[in-house]
């Protein structure tokens, strides 16, 4: 990359709040999507002529469609509770990365056009006209939010900056000002079926190769089936699982779990992607279109269960939104959703997370492990933000924290938690979520990882941790890239099912 060398910020001796460094990230300019990319997914190709009016009209529309946006723009009292909670603020010191300041970029415009106070006394309430400078700030700083929701945990009114960021991105799309990385990916998922643009035949080759590798390793014929009509389980997983390291190790693990439990399963070439970048740009329309592929694949293949692989935002979309968007779930009384729900097996949660599946099997005694196989690993667990704060697993609130940890402790002997305040619902984003996992934002990504790296360093120094397990494709890709900047080996990150894969005993249940 051109420009100055990217360096990790220094570890803080004490995790004090950084001093403000105004405009320190003003140089961070995400690439703007080109005409083809924008138009391919139904947005204006480039900044429309009367964009100010279009933007304000769009904001007005969203204010009638999203209670979250309306309530959150009205309710903030500038108390400051969120100001030191964002990993990007902690890493960069740029005050516009404080959640409240990020929200204010939109709130100020909202006040100017939609509230009596902002119309009459703009200076008094900090109201601002929608200008090109404002739009530039939006594009810059709403693309420095990974929609991880950490700030919403600490807000006395539950204001979720992710909701504001999504609305801002939707408005920017409406005026033809999209982000290249995300829009390119959404284009691919529609055209080819997954974010990485891996076509069906290539996928089949990859899976065949995987079967050979596993056979070589274990001597067992573990299958990685594709488009199998009538399989019991449809597994939808992030496409990175098909070839990226360390993601693929977890895919191997899912296959071994299904094999050992004797559950028939299949992947789908149509829905060969669990990720749903529609959420990142706040577009209900895209969110739904992308999710519909899974519904269609499930109906075509006639599966009884839908299971989602290790992916953070994908699980949030699956768990929290699929029932709404596509009817994948239960409890519907409308024909659209009933069509699918009568096909799905009501004895299982729909959709289920792969960790829920594995943990249920472990509890039922249907999986056996050789825990010593993981003895070379001293493990910690990084809660992925969208799983932690946007979803659940199991039957009770907080199951999303316990189930992955329970699995790890069932398959390995050496486990250590990272510091309080950096895990569970207070977990730090990896720094690459929300559609920011792109090279032009590497400076931001490195800095945003600081709080997680500090917590990791502590357990590395104290306990010799050499494996940070996680259940998110973006976390895995981001850490693989960022760990070396902090002096760690990139192989330090891996999946929970990578650990399962190492320890699981195959063939016992045959």
């Amino acid at each position, binding site marked *: 990359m051109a420009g100055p060398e990217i360096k990790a910020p220094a570890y803080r001796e004490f995790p004090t709040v950084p001093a*403000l460094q105004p405009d320190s990230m003003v140089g961070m300019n995400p690439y703007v999507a080109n005409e083809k990319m924008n138009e391919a997914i139904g947005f204006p190709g480039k900044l429309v002529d009367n964009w100010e009016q279009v933007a304000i009209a769009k904001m007005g529309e969203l*204010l*009638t*469609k*999203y*209670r*979250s946006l*309306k*309530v*959150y723009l009205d*309710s903030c*009292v*500038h*108390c*400051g*509770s*969120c*100001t*030191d909670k964002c990993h990007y603020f902690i890493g960069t010191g740029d*005050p516009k990365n*404080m959640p*409240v300041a990020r929200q*204010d970029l939109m709130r100020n415009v909202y006040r100017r056009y939609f*509230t009596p106070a902002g119309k009459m006394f703009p*200076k*008094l*309430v*900090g109201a601002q006209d929608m200008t090109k400078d404002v739009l530039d700030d939006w594009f810059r700083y709403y693309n420095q939010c990974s929609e991880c929701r950490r700030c*919403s*945990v*600490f*807000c*006395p*009114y*539950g204001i*979720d900056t992710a909701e504001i960021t999504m609305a801002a991105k939707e408005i920017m799309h409406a005026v033809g000002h999209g982000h290249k990385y995300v829009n390119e990916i959404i284009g691919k998922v529609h055209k080819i079926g997954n974010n990485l643009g891996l076509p069906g035949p290539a996928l089949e080759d990859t899976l065949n190769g995987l079967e050979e590798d596993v056979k070589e390793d274990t001597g067992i014929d573990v299958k990685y089936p594709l488009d199998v009509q009538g399989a019991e389980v449809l597994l939808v997983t992030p496409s990175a699982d098909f070839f990226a390291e360390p993601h693929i190790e977890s895919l191997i693990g899912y296959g071994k779990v299904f094999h050992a439990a004797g559950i028939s399963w299949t992947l789908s070439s149509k829905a060969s992607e669990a990720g749903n970048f529609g959420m990142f740009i706040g577009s*209900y*329309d895209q969110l*739904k279109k992308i999710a519909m592929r899974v519904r269609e694949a499930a109906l075509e293949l006639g599966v009884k269960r839908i299971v989602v692989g290790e992916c953070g935002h994908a699980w949030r979309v699956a768990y*929290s939104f699929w*029932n*709404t968007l596509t009817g994948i*779930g*239960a*409890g*519907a*009384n*409308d024909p659209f*959703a009933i069509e699918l729900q009568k096909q799905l097996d009501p004895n299982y*949660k729909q*959709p289920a997370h792969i960790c829920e599946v594995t943990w249920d099997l472990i509890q039922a005694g249907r999986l056996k492990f050789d825990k010593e196989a993981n003895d070379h690993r001293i493990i910690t667990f990084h809660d992925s933000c969208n799983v932690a*704060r*946007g979803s*659940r697993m199991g039957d*009770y*609130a*907080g199951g999303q*924290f316990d189930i992955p940890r329970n699995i790890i402790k069932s398959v390995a002997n050496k486990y250590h938690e990272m510091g309080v305040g950096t895990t569970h*619902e*207070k977990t730090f984003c990896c720094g690459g979520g929300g559609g920011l996992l792109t090279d032009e934002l590497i400076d931001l990504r490195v800095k945003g990882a600081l709080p997680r790296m500090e917590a990791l360093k502590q357990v590395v120094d104290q306990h010799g941790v050499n494996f940070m397990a996680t259940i998110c494709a973006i976390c895995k890709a981001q850490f693989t890239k960022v760990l070396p900047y902090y002096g760690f080996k990139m192989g330090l990150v891996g999946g929970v099912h990578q650990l399962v894969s190492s320890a699981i005993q195959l063939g016992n249940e045959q």
Partner: protein
Amino acid sequence: MTLFFAILFYVATALFVGGLAYKIYDFARTPAPLKIPTTPAPTSTPGVAFRMFREVALFESLFKGNLWIWALGWAFHMGLFLVLARHLRYFTEPVWTWVALIQPFGIYAGFAMAAGLAGLWARRFLVERIRYISTPSDHLMLALLLLIALTGLGMKFLMHTDIVAVKAFFLGLMVFDIQPLPAHPGLYIHLLCVALLMIVFPFSKLLHAPGLFFSPTRNQTDNPREARHVAPWAAQLEKN
């Protein structure tokens, strides 16, 4: 002056009630199309009610976020709550028993309120991050509230006013029978600020009070797999 304050309070009450009612209606009619509770979240309605209670009465999230802001903010709000309850004696005849019982506590609450406000205001100057996010209206709002608290305490401890006459004024207002308001500078400032606060309430960040109850991250049940949740405008999309 009596007439001025009488009209002022009619106008302020109308704006406060009407404006707030409109905002609540506006919040209520706007759908929340997706399930977005900040998890871990309650899986049942009683659970949500309990979570909301903790947010409203204890400021649970703020407690997790920042102890200083929590302590000052909670002292201010609870103080204000007790002080408001104490002031019910100006609007009821005979005074309700529980209002009579809390009278002594209301005085301490007045100090807690003023101390909380002073602390919150100090943070807007002393803490760099909070200085950065503060707007003129944030300062004015605190000034207004602090002025109300100080003039109130002033009338209690320094410059008494004829509170029997004040009570007669408000009881009269409630039945459109205007009684003389005592001429007292402290009282004038106090009432002027209160009326102003009522007027700005529906147009300002004071909307955080009703807002909290409508916050989807706090008031939604975590049951998206068990029940299908579709907003009316989203259901329309399915029909196409």
